[in-house]
């Protein structure tokens, strides 16, 4: 299990993209590790590598801030095991902020 994961990350609406320097989507490569990556680890990785400012507006504790929705391959992460979901190569992870949207 030494594959390098290529992921597609998207950030939508309500200013979630502002936290990522205005990027709306990006492809990222996760470094290889002995075990399979899960979403919990991905969030930690995002926090240290991608979040430029105010990480607490995106991540609180070990999960996303309430009001931020997560889609894994176009489906609600609640159906996918949330933080425990094991990432596959070329997964598509989208974060949608529902905060102060009109």
């Amino acid at each position, binding site marked *: 299990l030494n594959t390098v994961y290529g992921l597609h990350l998207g950030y939508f609406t309500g*200013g979630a993209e502002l*936290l990522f320097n205005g990027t709306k989507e990006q492809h990222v490569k996760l470094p290889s590790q002995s075990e399979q990556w899960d979403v919990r680890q991905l969030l930690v990785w995002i926090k240290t590598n991608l979040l430029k400012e105010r990480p607490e507006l995106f991540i609180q504790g070990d999960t996303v801030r309430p009001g931020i929705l997560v889609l894994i391959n*176009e489906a609600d992460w609640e*159906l996918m095991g949330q933080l425990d979901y094991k990432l596959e190569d070329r997964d598509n992870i989208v974060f*949608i902020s529902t905060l*102060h949207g*009109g």
Partner: protein
Amino acid sequence: MCQVEEDYKDEALQRTAALSVGQKCMKCKEGCAVVVIRVGDAFCKSCFRDYFVHKFRAMLGKTRLIFPGEKVLLALSGGSTSSSMLCQVQEGLSREASKKLRFSPGIVHIDEGAVCGRSAEERQETLMQLEAIFQASGFPYHIVYLEEVFKLPNSILQSVSSSPTSHGQNYKEAVDDFLQKQREALIDVEQRLTVEDERNVTHSEQIEAKFDQLSTSTAVSEENSATILSETSPSGKWPFTLEQTEAVKELFSSVKTLTAKEELLQTLRHHLILHTARNKEYSKIMMGDSCTRLAVKLLTNISLGRGASLAVDTGFSDNRYGDIMILRPMREYSSKEIAFYNKLFEVPTVFTPALDTKASDKASIHRLTESFVNKLQTDFPSTVSTVYRTSEKLNTACSDINSGVEQTDKCLLCLCIMDTKVEEASAFQATLISEKLSCKQSPDQMPVNKVSEQSCCDNQAEEKGKCCSTNSGACHPPVSNTTTDFLTLLCYSCRLTVKDMVSLSLLPQYVLSEAERRKRRAQVREQIQEFLLPPEDESDENY
């Protein structure tokens, strides 16, 4: 109470147990579930769409407030909820005849860029994106700038007492009437066609063309969009001056707290939307407030002391303006449902920064409440709809109060019914007392019976930071009469907002002159008081 807690515990357990990877849709039992709504209800993409679309139609059908052919103004910010609302209206108008929505929509967008730290170029760019969406809808649209508050007439602050619908008939009659007129028009068309037929005009083509014209939505939109576009197109000249931009910026920077800024912005936005509706002859306004947003509003209102206007602020229909009714057709959708719908069905949205997009959770009462409600929604999804259902109950109980209330009993700024006279022991009085007590180091210096004197942050206070909350000394500079008089015209929560302002003089002219007018009326009333016969019925005092 214990019962309730147990229910929530069960709910949390169910949620983890019921959901699994690759789950089937709970409705059709075939499709693969893609979204979980409420408690553990997993829907596939197509059933979710049906559910979402049906809810909108049911909401309008159940309430029966929109009459066929009526002009309805959709207030669109470009954000997720209002964009989703636009999409539902478009969907509703394109349906087959029996289920078709029969009103005639238009769009209004308020550009608030001036106070959200945006440059003219940034505002223009956002407006271009919005216009692309509005144009695609084919509906007439109106873009209004926050700066235009300086051009509003006094009358915007006067509630019109006429009935909200000029139809004077019930919904059923109105629908029948509308259909009857359509039928008559058709017969008329056919008769004329028989004449034209003799002149060798293709019959079916003609009928089709006439059918198109009869369909209220399409006909109106194409005509109007062209004229309105030229009127307000951002690519042309801005309909306001640089001075007005500066003035509106100055107004907002004179407001000390973010909570008050948010309240003020909402008030002015409502005035602009109302003005547009009156000007362009719309009789209803649709606002994109989701269930989550309304729950936030409701709890914020309670914290701000806007208890008296909870019902009108959060109900499905809001009739505070008298002639134009506000509707909130998105109030049964959670922000999660809306976000998923927009993502799955590619509903275009345009993100515009708010007053404080990156502010912390504790920056304002509104922010704090929002973060609380979002936590609730994540952990206990059903509680949020419980919160908004509470407002629904309040609505039925209070809806009659609004009619027959005299002008002077309505708040100058938000036009809700004044709550300040109602109870001596209200939250308003309580705040005044605690304000005074917390200002003084020794409470004995401020006898409680003096609390009826209003306001401590008046417009004369030049040292902004020195007021109320922090400093113990210099707390009550002499209150000027103008500020005190002004405050008496406001409801409790608008008083809090205005008290947060450094100077009243920065308010737009229509607010100040309407305040003057009401004060004069009150003075006249006082002067002639002794010559008047005691009114038998309070509501007859319309002189």
